[in-house]
């Protein structure tokens, strides 16, 4: 209560209190907007570069990409997808011909959500590359889903019809079989499940092979063009 008494003694007007807060808020707002604006180009460029690198990694032979979304019953190229809108990336070769899709997927893993990107060739119904974007799987075990080159290589020519199956290491016989990781079966199966689920989710929406949207001619939303 002594603190109250002291406050009473100095009691500044409520106008002054509001003014102080308002000025603090204003200055803080200006500072935040300043730093946001000045770092935004670098951040978006970084993100776009990371995305491009990932897409090029999972889709061999691709030199350009654009974002594709499903709107009004068909897949269209958009410069900037809306927030929360499901998106895939179309990969195009040097002549601007369509090569395949890079499809992002996510789902629960052993420890936490696993987010990944995989390359898909609709003409061959094959997965041709896979990259883990985010995971908190156990170091030394579950993290082999991206640290074990052999496991990642399993996804370089993999049929998705019928769905991918993870089998015990060394027993894969079919084109849709993946050798699971010894000791980290759950993580390996999670990767497979995420790809299967993503594939099923998009299967109906992707256009027939050969009718993919052409490359729009300008770089997709990669931040460099602002």
């Amino acid at each position, binding site marked *: 209560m002594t*603190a109250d008494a*002291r*406050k009473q003694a*100095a009691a*500044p007007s409520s106008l*002054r*209190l509001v003014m*102080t*807060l308002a000025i*603090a*808020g204003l*200055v*803080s707002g200006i*500072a*935040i907007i300043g*730093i*946001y604006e000045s*770092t935004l180009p*670098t*951040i978006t460029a*970084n*993100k776009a570069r*990371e995305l491009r690198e990932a897409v090029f990694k999972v889709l061999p032979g691709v030199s350009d990409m654009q974002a594709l979304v499903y709107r009004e019953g068909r897949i269209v190229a958009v410069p900037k997808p809306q927030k929360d809108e499901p998106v895939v990336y179309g990969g195009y070769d040097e002549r601007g011909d369509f090569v395949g899709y890079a499809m992002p997927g996510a789902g629960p893993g052993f420890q936490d959500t696993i987010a990944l990107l995989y390359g898909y060739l609709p003409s061959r119904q094959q997965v041709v590359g896979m990259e883990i974007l985010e995971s908190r799987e*156990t*170091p*030394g075990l579950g993290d082999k889903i991206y640290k074990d080159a052999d496991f990642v290589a399993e996804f370089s020519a993999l049929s998705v019809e019928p769905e991918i199956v993870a089998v015990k290491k060394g027993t894969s016989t079919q084109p849709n079989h993946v050798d699971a990781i010894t000791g980290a079966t759950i993580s390996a199966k999670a990767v497979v499940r995420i790809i299967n689920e993503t594939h099923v989710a998009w299967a109906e929406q992707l256009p027939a092979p050969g009718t993919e949207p052409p490359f729009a001619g300008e770089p997709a939303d990669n931040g460099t063009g602002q």
Partner: protein
Amino acid sequence: MKKNESYEEFVKGIWRDNPVFVQVLGMCPMLAVTNSAINAIAMGMASMFVLVGSSFLVSVFRHVIPKQVRISCFIIIIATFVTIADYTLLALVPKVHKELGAFIPLIVANCLILGRQEAFASRYPTRLAVMDALGMAGGFMLALFSLGAVREILGDGALFGFRLFGESFEPWIVMILPPGGFLTLGVILLFFNWFKYKKDEFLADVAEAERSGS
């Protein structure tokens, strides 16, 4: 005398009043990001930037800010610095930012930072406030680093990514997992207690000897 005073403010945070080992503050970022030495240092730097920056501002404006709204003002100041740190790290070192993830915004909720504003920066001249903030942040960094180093050395057989023991070292994976954070800090605190206990014992012995001597 003046010089000693600010030196004193600096040193107390590093050792005697170490925010983590002695005052047990700021535990959340402490444990969450110390699975490697580099993450620990990055978190320490970000916290130091926020703490020193806000201490400076709070101290400069300590006569201007009315008591009634001081906490709100402190929080606005701290949150601003944290946002600046967040975006700067994201722009300059995206890899580190990804590792630290959501724990950079959580610096705001680090009780150490708000605590220093309330207990020190809002009452003392700017020079002392900055020295105090530097000392506290240095102590925090020291704690983060020692925890991060121990966890990375045992958990990964490396320090700052350099392998220390050769390829066939068997890493203690638990150390970079959450339980390892709790256990390592628990054991470090244990050593601190033991050290204090021994020191007290030693001082008591010395006092005893002096008394019997005189």
